[in-house]
């Protein structure tokens, strides 16, 4: 009997530590509209990186939108208030996702469209068009042309080898990333490495890492390294428009740092903050910019990178099927 007691005591002591964890886990925050709003506002307040740059007074935004929230409101009404509040930041990397909608800031709403691939194809490329992976490429008046429509679509090295070989001996190369809304910037690096002749500092980034206004990491410099792959040994013109965003924006920054590259078209749409995500007690997700990237000369790329040569396609030219941005780029090689 005594032995059983000891065995019991042994197991009991070993169990003392079991299930002692609960005091260390904080309770989930309450799931109601007011608390969801408060958590969204506070998280943005702590970690969003562009308040100063965009001159947004987030406290005053709170004073405007907080009174519009109450615990009796519907999910749709709460979403509308939150979306309106987030759109004061004018940042398409700020999104709120629910089961019925995704908030999205339209960064190119008022900009001229400045691109229609159908016109490029029918008026300029014609029979020279080839589709190499996701690079639509052709030759126009002895100038190579590549349209890359989305950084979400991969570019492979062997595809680049083919295009480099195809464009050898031409007068120049036009890389067209108009309407490219971003994706994985890795493919931008692959493409840019075929142009760079030496290791180049392309931009610098700091990340918001604390709740204080000036809590940012030390600057982190990004470099474009070169390799032994075959290169486009040609002068380059990059075409951009206001739809060019995020990874497209970073790619523009990358190419601007290289010599012999001219940017023609419209200012890019921007998207220079790395998105960071979080959740609300009701299960909605949101993401927001958490970093600031600037060019070697200190220019912050969040609101877009202006071209070296500004060109807009007029309605008249568009109706004629002409792409005057492309024509301006071609003219640079005939001078």
């Amino acid at each position: 009997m005594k032995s059983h007691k000891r065995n019991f005591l042994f197991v009991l002591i070993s169990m003392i530590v079991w299930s002692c964890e609960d005091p260390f886990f904080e309770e989930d925050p309450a799931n109601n509209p007011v608390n969801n709003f408060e958590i969204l506002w506070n998280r943005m307040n702590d970690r969003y990186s562009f308040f100063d740059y965009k001159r947004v007074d987030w406290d005053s935004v709170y004073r405007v939108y907080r009174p519009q929230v109450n615990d009796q409101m519907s999910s749709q009404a709460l979403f509308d208030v939150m979306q309106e509040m987030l759109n004061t930041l004018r940042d398409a990397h700020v999104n709120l996702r629910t089961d019925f909608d995704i908030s999205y800031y339209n960064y190119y709403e008022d900009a001229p469209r400045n691109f229609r691939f159908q016109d490029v194809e029918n008026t300029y490329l014609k029979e020279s068009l080839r589709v190499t992976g996701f690079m639509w490429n052709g030759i126009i008046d002895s100038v190579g042309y590549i349209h890359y429509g989305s950084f979400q679509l991969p570019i492979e090295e062997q595809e680049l080898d083919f295009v480099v070989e195809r464009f050898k001996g031409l007068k120049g190369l036009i890389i067209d990333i108009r309407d490219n809304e971003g994706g994985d910037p890795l493919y931008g690096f692959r493409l840019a490495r075929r142009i760079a002749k030496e290791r180049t500092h392309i931009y610098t980034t700091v990340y918001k890492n604390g709740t204080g206004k000036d809590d940012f990491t030390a600057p982190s410099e990004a470099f474009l390294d070169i390799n032994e792959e075959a290169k486009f040994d040609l002068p380059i013109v990059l075409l951009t428009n206001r739809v060019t965003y995020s990874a497209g924006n970073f790619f523009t920054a990358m190419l601007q740092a290289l010599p012999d590259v001219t940017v023609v078209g419209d200012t890019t749409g921007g998207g220079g903050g790395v998105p960071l995500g979080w959740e609300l007690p009701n299960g909605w997700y949101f993401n927001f910019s958490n970093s600031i990237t600037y060019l070697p000369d200190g220019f912050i790329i969040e609101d877009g990178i202006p071209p070296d040569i500004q060109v807009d396609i007029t309605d008249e030219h568009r109706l004629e099927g002409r792409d005057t941005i492309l024509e301006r780029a071609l003219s640079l090689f005939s001078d």
Partner: protein
Amino acid sequence: MFLNRNFIRLGLLCLLGTTCLSTKAQEEAQDSVLSLPTTRYLTLGIGSKSVQLHDEHMSPLTYFGGALNLQLGVLKRKKKSLRNFTIDMAYTNLGPQADNREIDPKSIYFRLDLAYAQQHYVRSIINNTTRWYVGGKFKSHSNIRMNPQLDGAFVTFIFTNRLFLSNVLERELKVSGRPLTINWQLDLPVINHTIRPEYLNIYDFVNPESNWVEERVEDSEWRSIASYSNITSTISLLYPISTSNVLRFSYEWDFYRINSELKSTNATHTYLFSFLFHF
């Protein structure tokens, strides 16, 4: 800070429990004769792990989930020492508790632990019925959690190497005339070397060709017990099923908390059936 103090008190309580047992030891205690043969075993375990995780990098919500748990290992028992090497893997989907949420977020969670423990016999205690071992344990722990959210997915992970002070108490019972061994192991960390990077996107938007491993190594830091608390308690029952092989059932409670600006708290309960093959 309050929780921190509680945690330290809890650790002291556990140590106290161990010490109380040892002070009852009889002076004339001699080595008890283990029924388990002094030999080596290959261990193969399968079971389940329940996970509770709260990481402020990713969410204000606590996530839960049950995982399939696999364990491989080698156990070497000598008369005066225990040596145990294990590889332990668990994979699951985690989610917050249902509370009228409009979306049920999900996380993919993977955990891998490699551990080597070596304990040496100290003395027999409690009327020569319980053997007490003390030693050290090295554990390399990593867990990766991925949340598919907007714009790809986000990842948090922890990779840590720890040294523990490891205590084992072991005693024997008779069940149907056969020996059943109860083994309780309590591990308390001495030092941690940890990589816990800032929250990561599934791909690097800014510099995808940067040396990721080098950056993570630069992120690594030594953490004290206060800034990275951890406790592991394992109770096992070992039952010989043939002349040389052993069946083991074990329950492990593992808890850690990283006390930084954005806290991470993780508790797991693991139930494991293992076959110990003599070789």
